[in-house]
């Protein structure tokens, strides 16, 4: 709707048949409708100047919203480096490339707006009372101008032809010299959970939706999955004043990482804070009773009522592009451990979407190193610069911080090194060799402040 001066609002009407817009301000002088002719004053025998239908085929028109990104660099036809994904991995690789080369054209394709934020904050930010907008450290537009990156946002990659160096997107087909896949991963949902029935915190937009929903005041929150995200989120939301139920299909949280002793301490800590931990709890489905109350129904018949439901049931990498381009995919886009090249020479991948020797590595720490290696490979042909080191895992549960160096194995044997009021230190051995060290700080009840 357009306003021409303070009191008169001229309205727009669209022809349902051909899309012509009748603007009351302009009228249709060619058929004798003076500017300012109100729609209701148009004679019934008036015809659409384009397709000839009558006014009954017109309806009120509101200008639709356009979601394209603002232009951040001059238009260039030169194909350059194309990066898919505007998360930490995508922006890191762009920073690394720009550090070495101020001129090479870079295009960033992002499914979301592409604003920069620090993803690990999402599982601990609710208790700090911040909004999604406040978590943005730099908007995509600002970063795009600063790093001279062409932005294609709210757009999706739908096809990839590696032989022709052609990426097909929902905003057109682009050519590339090098392609960097930093598409991340998406929530893996068990089949009992529909995507629109639960929140996840895998990206800022969904987190922002949850944050808005929780603003109304203290609520009952059910979190499904007691991995790192589930545990961190449980504590964060509890701290923010909500009543949290953590639904865990296993006997202990973080089953693959923590020995039983450490896991028990973590559960004690959570329970002491007021978090309900449901162990060995398998979901049968969701239900809503007559008064509109929602519950998770467990296989043993018990129910966990909730106002908000969050899935923290793990991540998986979308394999569509890899499949189309014939890239090797093995639990993620398979990359060479030294070069981070996929099975196609000019296509690289980093971050959550990759797998090295069949193992996905979804931690923040290696990303900066991966980004530098890819930049060095693309710009200087230095193809062997990456060395994968298992990252130090830090669980940001503030009542009981956990630090894990090395990745424990199911066959490993845990030994307790220190256990006192302040900390628990344990080590895991495989065939006499120490492969992991676990440190848990501040046992329950001893948290300062």
């Amino acid at each position, binding site marked *: 709707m357009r306003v021409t001066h303070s009191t008169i609002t001229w309205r727009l009407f669209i022809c*349902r048949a051909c899309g012509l817009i009748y603007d009351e301000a302009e009228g249709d002088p060619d058929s004798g409708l003076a500017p300012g002719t109100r729609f209701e004053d148009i004679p019934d025998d008036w015809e659409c100047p384009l397709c000839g239908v009558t006014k009954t085929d017109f309806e009120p028109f509101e200008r639709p919203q356009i979601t394209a990104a603002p232009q951040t660099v001059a238009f260039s036809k030169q194909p350059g480096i194309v990066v898919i994904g505007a998360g930490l991995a995508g922006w890191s690789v762009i920073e690394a490339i720009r550090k070495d080369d101020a001129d090479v054209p870079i295009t960033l394709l992002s499914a979301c707006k592409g604003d920069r934020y620090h993803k690990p904050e999402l599982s601990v930010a609710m208790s700090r009372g911040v909004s999604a907008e406040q978590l943005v450290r730099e908007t995509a537009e600002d970063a795009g101008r600063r790093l001279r990156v062409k932005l294609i946002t709210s757009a*999706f990659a739908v096809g990839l032809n590696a032989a022709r160096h052609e990426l097909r997107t929902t905003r057109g087909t682009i050519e590339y010299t090098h392609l960097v896949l930093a598409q991340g991963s998406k929530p893996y949902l068990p089949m009992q959970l529909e995507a629109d029935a639960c929140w996840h915190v895998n990206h800022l937009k969904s987190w922002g939706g949850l944050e808005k929903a929780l603003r109304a005041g203290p609520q009952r929150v059910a979190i499904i999955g007691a991995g790192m995200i589930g545990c961190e989120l449980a504590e964060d939301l509890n701290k923010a004043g909500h009543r949290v139920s953590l639904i865990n299909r296993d006997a202990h949280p973080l089953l693959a990482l923590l020995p039983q002793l450490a896991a028990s301490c973590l559960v004690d800590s959570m329970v002491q804070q007021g978090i309900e931990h449901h162990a060995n709890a398998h979901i049968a489905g969701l239900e809503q009773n007559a008064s509109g109350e929602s519950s998770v129904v467990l296989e043993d018949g018990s129910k966990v009522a909730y106002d908000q439901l969050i899935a923290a049931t793990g991540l998986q990498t979308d394999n569509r592009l890899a499949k189309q381009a014939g890239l090797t995919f093995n639990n993620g886009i398979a990359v060479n451990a030294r070069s981070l090249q996929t099975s196609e020479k000019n296509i690289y991948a980093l971050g959550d979407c990759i797998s090295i020797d069949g193992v996905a590595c979804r931690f923040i720490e290696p990303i900066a190193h991966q980004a530098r290696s890819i930049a060095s490979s693309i710009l200087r042909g230095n193809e062997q610069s990456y060395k994968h080191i298992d990252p130090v895992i830090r669980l940001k549960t503030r009542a009981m911080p956990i630090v894990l160096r090395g990745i424990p194995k199911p066959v490993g044997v845990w030994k307790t090194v220190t256990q006192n009021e302040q900390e628990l230190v344990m080590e895991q051995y495989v065939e006499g060799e120490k492969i992991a060290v676990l440190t848990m700080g501040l046992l329950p009840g001893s948290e300062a402040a």
Partner: protein
Amino acid sequence: MNNTALSNEDESFWDDDARILCDVERVASVRLSAVANSIDQDGYYPADIMGELGQAGAFLPHLKAYGERFDAAINNMSAISRNCGSTGFITWCQDVCGLYMELSGNPALVNRLVDHATGTTFGGTALSNPMKAFTNIEAMALKANKVEGGYVVSGTLPWVSHIADGQCCGAIAAIDNSDGSRSHEVMFMLDINEEVNLTKCPEFSGMEGTSTWALNLNKYFVSDAQIIADPARPFIKKIRGAFILLQTGWAMGVTQASIDACREVEVSLGHVNQFLHNRPDELEAELKDLHARIMQLAKDPYDTSKEHMLDVLDTRAQCSELALKASQSALLHQGARGYLMKSKPQRLIREAHFVGIVTPAIKHLRWEMAKLMSEG
């Protein structure tokens, strides 16, 4: 499928894809290429040639009754389109109209299938508006009210092709509740009779012989014998991929014709054309890739998974992009002779533009892919 509809046919007659394609190619190259310009510019509606193509088996392989061979139907359409894009387009109209009849399961419509499939009768499709309406691009144009024994429908559709008095087209109308909210939609076979007002469309830049009319209904009665699906949405969900996939045959034909046009002048102009980009070999390699992808998708035309739909939409978009690129190249290859008003590249460019803008247009395809992708 009601097999009694085929009782007069020797069913094995239509089993040989290669023979059908060969016959279709013959009719198309002998009869169509001679009149392609007249169809495109002068509005000659090739009903006679469509009849011959129907007799050759062009319009039936994709139907369940004839073995559901979408690959063969697409290849037939492509062969027709290679000689005349307008006729390729109305072949698609005829093909999807056949789908509506058959999949309706309505005996009254299924009984009309043999005549339709063999080109004795013709029919088109008026689904451009509802297809866009179902993905929130625009509002529904036809409104229906339930009455005894059927519906009455009113409204206007601006451009419906391959229709004429005595022909038919699949159409969808919205049914609203008394409070103005939408109840559901009904899909029906709109039989073009004296109750239907067909108005001449403004002059198009090409494709004039597709018998395209503005169609206005004023309390048109739809009987139970005409119902394709009520409600329409589940039916549309089922056929949507097949509906879009079939169009690729038409688009690939326009592309192939453009490659042919580049090659036609190779002997005389090859020494300078070698400096052009988008050369015929390059275009043909892309067409070959695309054709292989389409043949793969044609094996499972009613797959409604998100993955399959994305592939169909993306392939269809690529068909448009390639047809546009190839027709442009055809004109550049032919140079001045391609700039003559009656030249083949001029027609191919108009045809390719139509491939790019008709529903689903490139922009609609991308809009819809973005929508599907953002649904998780």
